């Protein structure tokens, strides 16, 4: 595939269909009919012409049925044409005041231009009676009409007339943009072309409709209709030849009379001569010659044309059959050279499958006659046709080589056109390795929208294969739209209950027991599970999720399922239960608490669900990627030489749960990957490196329904990763003898996850990829971004490394640097001071403090403490009182030994947080966690107090001496009479918390 071809695919020939959007720009929308009432009566039959046309447009799925306006007098027509815009005028033979030829001349004199183009609107004569028309032609100069037609009872003629003129207006543009095909019709007999035209158009439009089924989504389907072949009607040899020479690369076929004018005179054999001339340039264009003289049949065959006798009673039927067979409308019929039919292909997928099995004789037979490229062209698959047409059978070493070339092109094309689009899920077209499709209407939710956008960026900018041997992609997924969520709630009458109920277990139970799941979705899920048999992540994607200021990070559930049972019903049941649980999580107290501190109402929230193939490899009953991580384009805590704009990445062996829930990770700047500040000393490395990792357990007891509410993950020791062959990519070894750490695991000793092989020895370009993705994300979103990813290095030999981008969302960064003099305050006036502060500006609305005294705190009881904090938080949120939270250790860590393991919703009412140290351990905030994401999004002031740092201060005595309103275990609620004042300077990362009544006026 060369660059030129890729461009064609990009810009109109395939994937994104931009070219298709610009097709058929010139349309006939308003038609003026000038006819006597009686003509109109004949014309309308039962007086419903407009309805008939409108219905026909609808049934053919053509957009914009034209408006028809009828007047009976020429004078009225002239007046109306001066007042209103019309795109075409149809005049019948009987006008009340002005004869039709005279009227046409008067209209031409008005010089009315077509929709801003420099051409006049067409004026058409529509006759009803052959004899009357013949009379008119004999006695008048009818050249003033752009075309004359005769009505023979088929109201579709009107559609034929409209389409004929539209095609004339659009042919140049559409052929140039995407190579739209054309059929040349040469016929000088008004009666004949008046009957052929509606038949040919109907056949073409029905062919387009057959293809619509292969459209990727609704808009693609409609766009595809615009690429239908056009008809170029001519009445003379010269006119036809001009069409042929102008568009010869895009001619689908020719339907021609034999006897028509050449050089201004009737030429009995003009059709034969024209065919012979065309054959010199194109030996394989299908030509159908017609004549009322049957003796021309042999001559027609001699020039390689088919023949139909005009007088035949089956002419129109035969014409339709010819188009189906020779213009490749309908199925592709594989034949042997003797004409025996051996197989049929109905669409691209079945074409690919059939090509694999048909004998070489058949492939050679069709290839030599360009049948494949013709079939693709007729299906508006111009890019595929272009791939094959310039090639001859002799260009390939063997017919089998040709066979694999076509199959590869088909596969590549099917894959390409799915990329970057969210297609409607169809089992036939869904590619389990690439596609991103939807089931059901409604919204996709915030997370899926972000993924869809990411998918577009990765594909449009060809990032997927930017790095050799690495495939960067959004893992294939289907998204269940929010309509299914609504339907599920309605049909099971769950909405009212779920909004009211405060017991998560009860909600979970009722949702799992709900017996009705929308049938449409179940059918699609069965089809999906038939295609995908590897582990799946079932992820929430609510309407409000991933917005910049309310990310809902970690609020809703993600469930991972092994999807490996031999019984398909069990797999389906497991998947449906997971979806129900995600739905239930919309109403859990976590979510309710979270929404309370936003400006939204819970009933506005809706849930879409992403079902995504997991990135990873299966090892002995577990499944996990080599490593996962979160990358941010902005580093809130840069340590030299890092800069804030360099970004920061947290990575961990195994599933990303370790990172997003605040476990031990490796943190590095993509600009300085080799500098791992956290491992500045051997002791630091030993203390702060990952000890175990998460994987999806494939050996869950599937009969036990109670297991399904778990995320499905399990912690494993590093030894397991070493046995699985994943540890060596990310680990170093500690040598006890000389108290040193060595990169890799070739030595004997304790293993440490340092990512040194990747970050220092560059066995994988992780930093380069992330630098590119972060730049891309920030550019695309116009904001700083956070990206979650998972990488599988343990792919099969010869297969690319799998780099899955799992999520991208904007993050809030406050850049204002209000000048504040924070130095003027004495420590005695302050509750706290720190030079490790996140946040900016002034907060002066906090009068409540939730205080966990590090002095008396017992680290063995962190979980109980989290529960108590949750209760106090609920109370304060309910009262609408923001508070200052002061406590030891890392907030938001899942590791109870590093800090109090609260999730965001348990402290959602905190407007400011002081993280002070344990007496015996220093921990740093994890920037990769969901907790951190919420912290920044809600602009919570976050102070880190480091013991013995002269820039840090906290007045524990003042706090301890305050009267408390409530005390539960180690947690005190203090209520002040006057508010605290918090001042922060984001630029300097400095901040102070001023005691009430200690504010110093600025000079």
């Amino acid at each position, binding site marked *: *595939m*060369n*660059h*030129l071809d*890729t*461009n*064609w*695919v990009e*810009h109109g*020939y395939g994937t994104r269909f931009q070219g298709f959007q610009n097709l058929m720009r010139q349309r006939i929308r308003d038609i003026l009919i000038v006819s006597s009432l009686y003509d109109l009566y004949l014309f309308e039959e039962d007086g419903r012409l407009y309805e008939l046309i409108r219905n026909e447009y609808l049934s053919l799925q053509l957009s914009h049925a034209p408006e028809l306006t009828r007047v009976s007098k020429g004078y009225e027509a002239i007046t109306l044409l001066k007042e209103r815009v019309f795109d075409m005028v149809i005049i019948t033979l009987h006008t009340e005041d002005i004869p039709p030829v005279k009227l046409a001349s008067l209209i031409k004199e008005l010089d009315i231009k077509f929709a801003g183009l420099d051409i006049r609107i067409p004026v058409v004569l529509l006759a009803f009676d052959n004899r009357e028309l013949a009379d008119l032609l004999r006695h008048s100069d009818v050249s003033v009409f752009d075309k004359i037609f005769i009505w023979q009872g088929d109201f579709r003629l009107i559609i034929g007339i409209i389409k004929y003129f539209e095609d004339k207006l659009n042919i140049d543009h559409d052929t140039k943009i995407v190579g739209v095909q054309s059929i040349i019709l040469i016929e000088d007999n008004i009666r004949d072309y008046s009957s052929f035209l509606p038949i040919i158009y109907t056949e073409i439009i029905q062919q387009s409709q057959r293809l619509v089924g292969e459209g990727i989504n609704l808009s693609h389907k409609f766009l595809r209709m615009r690429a239908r072949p056009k008809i170029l009607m001519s009445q003379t040899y010269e006119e036809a030849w001009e069409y042929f020479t102008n568009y010869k690369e895009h001619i689908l076929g020719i339907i021609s009379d034999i006897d028509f004018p050449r050089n201004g005179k009737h030429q009995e054999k003009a059709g034969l001569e024209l065919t012979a001339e065309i054959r010199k340039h194109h030996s394989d264009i299908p030509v159908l010659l017609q004549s009322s003289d049957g003796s021309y049949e042999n001559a027609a065959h001699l020039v390689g044309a088919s023949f139909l006798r005009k007088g035949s009673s089956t002419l129109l039927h035969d014409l339709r059959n010819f188009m189906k067979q020779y213009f490749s409308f309908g199925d592709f019929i594989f034949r042997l050279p003797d004409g025996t039919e051996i197989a049929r292909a109905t669409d691209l997928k079945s074409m690919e499958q059939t090509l694999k099995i048909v004998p070489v004789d058949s492939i050679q037979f069709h290839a030599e006659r360009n049948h494949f490229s013709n079939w693709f062209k007729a299906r508006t698959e111009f890019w595929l046709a272009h791939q094959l047409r310039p090639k001859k059978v002799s260009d390939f070493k063997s017919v089998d080589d040709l066979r694999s070339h076509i199959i*590869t*092109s088909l596969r*590549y094309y099917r894959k*390409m056109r799915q990329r970057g689009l969210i297609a409607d899920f169809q089992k036939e077209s869904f590619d389990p390795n690439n596609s991103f499709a939807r089931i059901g209407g409604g919204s996709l939710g915030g997370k899926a929208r972000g993924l869809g956008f990411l998918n577009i960026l990765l594909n*449009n*900018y*060809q*990032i*997927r*294969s*930017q790095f050799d041997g690495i495939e960067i992609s959004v893992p294939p997924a289907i998204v269940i739209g929010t309509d299914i969520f609504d339907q599920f709630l309605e049909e099971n009458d769950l909405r009212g209950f779920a909004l009211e109920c405060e017991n998560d277990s009860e909600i979970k139970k009722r949702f799992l027991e709900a017996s009705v799941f929308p049938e449409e979705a179940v059918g699609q899920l069965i089809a999906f599970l038939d295609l995908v048999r590897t582990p799946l992540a079932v992820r929430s994607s609510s309407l409000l999720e991933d917005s910049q200021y309310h990310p809902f990070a970690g609020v809703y559930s993600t469930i991972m399922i092994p999807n490996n049972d031999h019984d398909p019903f069990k797999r389906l049941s497991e998947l449906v239960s997971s979806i129900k649980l995600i739905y239930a999580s919309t109403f859990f107290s976590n979510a309710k608490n979270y929404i309370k501190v936003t400006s939204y109402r819970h009933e506005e929230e809706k849930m879409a669900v992403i079902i995504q193939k997991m990135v990873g490899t299966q090892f002995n009953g577990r499944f996990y990627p080599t490593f996962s991580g979160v990358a941010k384009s902005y580093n809130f805590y840069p340590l030299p030489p890092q800069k804030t704009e360099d970004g920061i990445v947290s990575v961990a062996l195994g599933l990303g749960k370790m990172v997003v829930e605040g476990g031990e990770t490796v943190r590095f700047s993509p600009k300085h990957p080799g500098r791992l500040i956290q491992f500045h000393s051997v002791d630091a490395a030993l203390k702060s490196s990952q000890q175990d990792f998460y994987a999806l357990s494939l050996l869950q007891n599937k009969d036990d329904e109670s297991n399904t509410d778990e995320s499905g993950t399990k912690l494993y020791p590093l030894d397991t990763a070493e046995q699985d062959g994943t540890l060596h990519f990310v680990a170093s070894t500690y040598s006890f003898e000389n108290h040193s750490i060595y990169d890799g695991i070739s030595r004997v000793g304790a293993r440490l996850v340092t990512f040194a092989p990747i970050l220092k020895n560059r066995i994988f370009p992780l930093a*380069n990829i992330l*630098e*590119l993705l972060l*730049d*891309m994300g920030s*550019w695309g979103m116009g904001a700083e971004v956070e990206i979650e990813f998972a990488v599988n290095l343990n792919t099969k030999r010869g297969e690319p490394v799998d780099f899955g981008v799992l999520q991208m969302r904007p993050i809030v960064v406050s850049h204002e640097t209000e000048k504040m003099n924070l130095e003027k305050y004495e420590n005695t006036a302050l509750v706290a001071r720190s030079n490790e502060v996140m946040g900016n500006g002034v907060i002066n609305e906090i009068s409540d403090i939730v205080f966990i005294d590090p002095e008396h705190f017992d680290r063995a009881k962190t979980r109980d403490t989290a529960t108590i904090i949750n209760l106090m938080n609920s109370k304060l949120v309910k009262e609408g009182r923001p508070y200052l939270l002061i406590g030891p250790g890392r907030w938001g860590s899942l590791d109870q030994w590093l800090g109090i393991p609260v999730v965001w919703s348990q402290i959602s009412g905190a407007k400011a947080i002081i993280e002070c140290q344990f007496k015996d351990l220093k921990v740093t905030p994890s920037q990769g966690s969901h907790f951190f994401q919420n912290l920044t999004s809600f602009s919570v002031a976050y102070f880190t107090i480091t013991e013995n740092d002269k820039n840090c201060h906290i007045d524990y005595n003042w706090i301890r001496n305050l009267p408390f309103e409530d005390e539960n275990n180690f947690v005190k609620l203090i209520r002040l009479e006057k508010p605290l004042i918090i001042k922060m300077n984001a630029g300097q990362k400095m901040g102070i918390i001023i005691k009430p009544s200690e504010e110093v006026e600025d000079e």
Partner: protein
Amino acid sequence: MSENKENNEKPLEQCPHCKAPLSSWEQVLLKVDRALVCKKCWYRISLPVITPGDPNAKPGKGDKK
């Protein structure tokens, strides 16, 4: 059949005007969009647009500031 592999166009690694290095994302943008404004000197770098009918387009020059 990988879509990029045979695209032999060498990416521009620095601004032709001020010689500031282009980030890998800027190189991608330039390659696909065929135009980019240098963040450092505001020079508009443009590459020839490759259209289906013009496979042998010659390298373009940057526009003036």
